[in-house]
């Protein structure tokens, strides 16, 4: 077994998918010789050639629009959007074309496209490089939206997303790319792509997270344990569809829930999760479901991003407020 980073896990997963299916293509800006600005596609063009790992012109709508045509021709394009804030030029193709063609064609034309987006902040970048646009895609029928929080999930989930016959927006927490290492056991059966997972058992409160916030919430739960509070942490993993059963089971047990994400709170994923918990677990709740996230402002200049982003203390503050009810 080897210890790998998230970047390596994704790279190995992409490689495995390309080896398994000759129809898998990688498209994006600088994905070839450079291996992507985060090196996620490192070495793939060298081994699979320029016709399968395609350095595209700098035009995001062009990347997604041509991916639609390639998918119609039987290919499985994996499109890399270089940074979250650059996905918007492709928004029309994603929302009006990729998401709707299967529906519009009455099921005759599938769109097995993966849209990889490095997302989230905390890397000291300039504007448009630290955003969390997941709710905009989760709000779009026809798309599936997932996010990995660790190297092992990165390895398996990217392969599962590529094998999926529906379009998948695949969000990668960029600040985790080269951070923590984990042991990858390739012989282990991966968990389902569209499932949430309890990553820490607890009995007093349910903390919900995905992507970059999973680590923060694990640390928060550890800190809370020191104060005698037993917190259950769930990695949602799939944002559309949401796998609510483990969440609801947890909240029925704990009676309290806090949803966290880096994205703006207003109409963020937390709003949907809170609504669903309230609809299903109303009589089990000891407190309203609380949300912790980015403020409803544009992403700030990097010198104040650590204050802007929800961190361990902001999560624990919400935990305190929940227990205060």
């Amino acid at each position, binding site marked *: 077994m080897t210890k790998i980073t998230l970047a390596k896990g994704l790279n190995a997963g992409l490689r495995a998918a390309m080896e398994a299916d000759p129809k898998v293509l990688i498209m994006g800006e600088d994905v070839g010789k450079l291996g992507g600005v985060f090196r996620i596609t490192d070495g793939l063009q060298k081994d699979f050639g320029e016709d399968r790992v395609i350095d595209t012109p700098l035009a995001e*709508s062009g990347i997604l629009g041509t991916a639609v045509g390639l998918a119609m021709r039987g290919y499985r394009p994996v499109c890399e959007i270089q940074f979250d804030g650059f996905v918007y030029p492709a928004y029309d193709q994603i929302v009006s074309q990729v998401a709707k063609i*299967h529906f519009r064609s*009455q099921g005759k034309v599938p769109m097995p496209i993966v849209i990889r987006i490095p997302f989230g902040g905390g890397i000291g970048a300039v504007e448009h490089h630290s955003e969390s646009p997941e709710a905009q895609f989760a709000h779009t029928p*026809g798309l599936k939206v997932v996010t990995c929080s660790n190297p092992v999930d990165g390895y398996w989930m990217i392969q599962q997303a590529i094998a999926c016959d529906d379009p998948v927006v695949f969000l990668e927490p960029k600040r985790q790319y080269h951070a923590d290492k984990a042991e990858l056991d390739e012989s282990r059966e991966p968990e389902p792509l*569209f499932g949430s997972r309890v990553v820490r058992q607890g009995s007093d409160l349910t903390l919900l997270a995905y992507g970059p916030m999973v680590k923060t919430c694990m640390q928060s739960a550890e800190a809370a344990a020191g104060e005698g509070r037993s917190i259950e942490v769930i990695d949602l993993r799939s944002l559309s569809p949401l796998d609510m059963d483990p969440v609801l089971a947890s909240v029925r047990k704990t009676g309290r829930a806090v949803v966290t994400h880096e994205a703006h709170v207003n109409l963020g994923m937390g709003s949907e999760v809170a609504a669903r918990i309230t609809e299903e677990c109303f009589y089990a709740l000891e407190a309203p479901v609380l949300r912790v996230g980015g403020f409803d402002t544009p992403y700030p200049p990097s010198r104040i991003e650590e204050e802007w982003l929800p961190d361990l203390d902001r999560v624990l503050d919400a935990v305190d407020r929940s227990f205060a009810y």
Partner: protein
Amino acid sequence: MSENPPLPRAGAIGPDLVEAFGPSQVHGGPELVQLLSPEGERVEHPEFALDLGDDEDEAIKGFYRDMVLTRRIDTEATALQRHGELGIWAQLLGQEAAQIGSGRALLPQDFVFPTYREHGVAWCRDIDPLRLLGLFRGVDQGGWNPNDGNFGLYTIVIGAQTLHAVGYAMGMQRDGIVGTGDAERDGAVVAYFGDGASSQGDVNESFIFSSVFNAPVVFFCQNNQWAISEPIERQSRIPLYQRALGFGFPGIRVDGNDVLACYAVTQAALRRAREGSGPTFVEAYTYRMGAHTTTDDPTRYRLSSELEHWKLKDPIARVRAYLTRNGIVDDDFFTDIEGEAEKLGEHLREGCKALPEPSPLSVFDQVYVDQTPELAAQKEGFAAYLDSFETAPEGALSR
């Protein structure tokens, strides 16, 4: 790696292009390629010969029939809208030659990406015109399988389909069916769009992608002079076909009301694409004689004298004049086609009303290949809700 031969790479802009399309086209030259004058006189063009196979007369008779029947589809659908059977209809009146000429230049292995007005091209691809009505009646959003007849679904977002066309063409390159020299296999893609779409970012991006990847695409722009109420002058300061050179491939302006010229130019462009020489921009210079759609009122923004001028260039009248003057057909030919048109009209009138109504519950079924548990639950809940009415809303359950 694939066993396909290496993809052709884009060459420099230079002698190759000049050779392919002649210096006059690359440099502006006599703008309009025309092979049949508005009066129905055959004219020769130094660079585009008419290649209609062994029986030229028979082919031209076929074009005439195609155009008359296409116009009948259009007038019948317009009437169906007026009778409340369609919510809206996008008319093609005046663009029959551009669509039949280009559509008949296609080979079975070619693929078409239409806008929402390519009823004549659909006809050439053997799509039952009744299938076109579903979108406009609101019973579906595309009633045909794009892979039957290689004719994509109508695309309403302006210009979005041009990128799909380039992607599809890139797929053909990877499948090794471009530039092999096998005329039965080598294929190309035609992207249809209009003068208004030429301003869209997607269209310009599609030019760039096709150019740098040398994709086998023909960009067939029907410049019908109007984007709803906006004249071509609001989209471009230069003739549209001249834009192509800036992207690195040839552009041609063809008389869009001349079915022979549209056929010859599209055929040349398609051959060029299939042989691996890359994209071509064809600007079919034509006129939208009708409204943008049945909801539009052109009297608010253009003079009727303009329409009168273009009526003299009617695409069907000139072929009729040619066939008659040269004694190629007799009156029976025209009578027979009128009879066919009547039958087609009846097919559309009766078929339209008989198009099956979609079930409200069907909306959940094709959102995904693998339906999500959430949608399955929503469908179940909606079905239970509908069943909860003592008297179901009329037709809701029987559908």
